[in-house]
């Protein structure tokens, strides 16, 4: 069953024609209505009329997240506010938030993209979908909500938190599909089991649509087993739209990219040259239908590859493999994006602390934990517990207010943090 059979199973040639038509419109729309896009294209000596094939997009310059920060708040909006119907924003923890606007059409297409995933896990208008992503500026909650509404499901907007109640609702309301982060899905499953249920047998739930953070295959299997569900991995990013850019079908071998709305490229992160299908590299996205915030060759920093072999499910849109890493050092902690540079910035404001540090990421009871190992400067008085505790408290509070996540501070003895040759191993990810 497909949500939009004519689009999702469109013959490749026809799909490429559709993409080219839309790409021409989108690049022209961006060029004519966003000063920044016109500027970088002019500098690169290209203009929208140079676009005669899909491959011609490689002549165009890239856009990066910093461009969005520089344009804060509305410098990359291509339509007047009159036509903007919603504005989402990133957490802005690196100093400057990034904003993304959505027109009526943008929101409708977003719903369609996510809706395809609901069908992939066997959902339909008869389904009850529980959205346990956070609602708000974060795109998870409202994105999944829009998908549920597009299908015509009964949507339960539980948002995240109050886990016992989530379990109660899942049981009493007969939830068919759960949408949230993988770690939260597992936490809900474990809570249900703690409460004495066997959700795999006793609950109606049959599908989960999970994304916004990485999950290992072991973790996926654990979720499948504990909840008794089909697992749909959803990819998306707020700069481009939100969850629904790519979604995993029942074959569970890659995520179908919504190629009618987005054009994917994989480039070598060092040379920025395109790599052949099947090879890993950085995912670059050109939007094809976005009206409020069209993007030309946006570098996502996510590392994946394109799976171009036909999929047994019958969908013709090419797939991307699950995200295997980042080309920058961004960490995702409980769905919040954190860069080591933010932590470094805080540390340098504390003269008592040496600049050598190590970040240790662990997962306890399904929740991400972040610990910071730091050394004190030699002249810091280590003989008094009060002063040490005071330092830990102040450093912890400053990090919490900057990163919006709780960081455990460990003061360690000197030289336990490697002073490495060249690139420091700053992050130890044990998740």
């Amino acid at each position, binding site marked *: 069953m497909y949500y939009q059979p004519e689009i999702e199973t469109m013959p490749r040639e026809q799909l490429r024609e559709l993409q080219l038509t839309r790409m021409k419109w989108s690049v022209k729309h961006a060029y004519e209505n966003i000063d920044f896009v016109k500027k970088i294209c002019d500098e690169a000596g290209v203009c929208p009329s140079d676009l005669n094939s899909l491959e011609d997009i490689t002549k165009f310059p890239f856009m990066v997240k910093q461009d969005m920060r520089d344009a804060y708040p509305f410098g990359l909006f291509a339509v007047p506010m009159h036509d903007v119907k919603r504005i989402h924003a990133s957490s802005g923890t690196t100093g400057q938030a990034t904003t993304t606007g959505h027109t009526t059409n943008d929101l409708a297409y977003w719903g369609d993209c996510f809706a395809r995933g609901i069908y992939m896990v066997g959902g339909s208008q008869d389904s009850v979908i529980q959205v346990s992503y956070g609602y708000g500026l974060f795109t998870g909650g409202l994105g999944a909500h829009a998908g549920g509404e597009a299908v015509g499901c009964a949507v339960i907007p539980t948002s995240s938190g109050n886990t016992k109640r989530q379990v109660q609702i899942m049981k009493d309301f007969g939830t068919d599909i759960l949408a949230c982060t993988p770690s939260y899905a597992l936490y809900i499953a474990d809570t249900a089991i703690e409460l004495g249920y066997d959700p795999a047998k006793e609950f109606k739930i049959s599908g989960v649509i999970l994304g916004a953070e990485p999950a290992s295959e072991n973790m996926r299997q654990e979720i499948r087993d504990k909840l008794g569900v089909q697992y749909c991995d959803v990819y998306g990013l707020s700069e481009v739209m939100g969850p629904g850019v790519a979604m995993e079908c029942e074959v569970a071998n890659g995520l179908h990219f919504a190629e009618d709305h987005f054009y994917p490229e994989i480039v070598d992160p060092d040379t920025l040259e395109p790599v052949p299908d099947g090879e890993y590299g950085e995912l670059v996205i050109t939007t094809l239908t976005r009206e409020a915030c069209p993007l030309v060759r946006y570098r996502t920093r996510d590392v994946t590859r394109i799976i171009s072999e036909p999929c047994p499910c019958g969908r013709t849109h090419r797939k991307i493999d699950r995200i295997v890493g980042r080309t920058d050092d961004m960490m995702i902690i409980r769905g919040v994006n954190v860069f080591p540079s933010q932590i470094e910035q805080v540390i340098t404001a504390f003269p008592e602390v040496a600049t050598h540090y190590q970040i240790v990421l662990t997962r306890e009871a399904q929740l991400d934990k972040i610990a910071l190992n730091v050394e004190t400067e030699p002249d810091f*008085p280590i003989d008094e517990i009060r002063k040490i505790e005071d330092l830990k408290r102040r450093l912890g509070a400053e990090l919490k207010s900057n990163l919006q996540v709780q960081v455990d501070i460990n003061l360690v003895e000197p*030289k336990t943090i490697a002073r490495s040759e060249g690139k420091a191993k700053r992050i130890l990810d044990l998740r």
Partner: protein
Amino acid sequence: MIDQLSVFLPNKKGTLSSVAAALSEADINMHALAIADTAEYGIVRIICDTPRAAAQALADAGLRATTTPVFAVRVPNTPGGLTQLLSFCEEKELNIEYGYCFLLGDEGAIDVLKIDAAAEDVLREGGFEMVSPEEIYQLDNA
């Protein structure tokens, strides 16, 4: 004031032992040792010979060690010896950060107190005898 050797120890197996081993290796004798422990780390406070050399030896062994000036006050080795000193501190509003005691030969007890350095005159005027470093430990020849 005398120099105390202060060592920061993460709460891990074998760290205290490594302190003792490093001092032994450097041929440094300890006269007193007190441990303050928290859930995540401990602080070891030591009165020993050549404290600066000791701190260096520990630093060389990869430990976080430093010397801290503290007061060493001689009190009689009789009931109430400590009370007299503490009552005086309370009366003069001297805030004690931490303290511990040890015996020095037959000459009585030594109370080690971490108090603001300005307290020295107050204690002297109160008639308390400060013990000089050379009476307790071998000095650093630097």
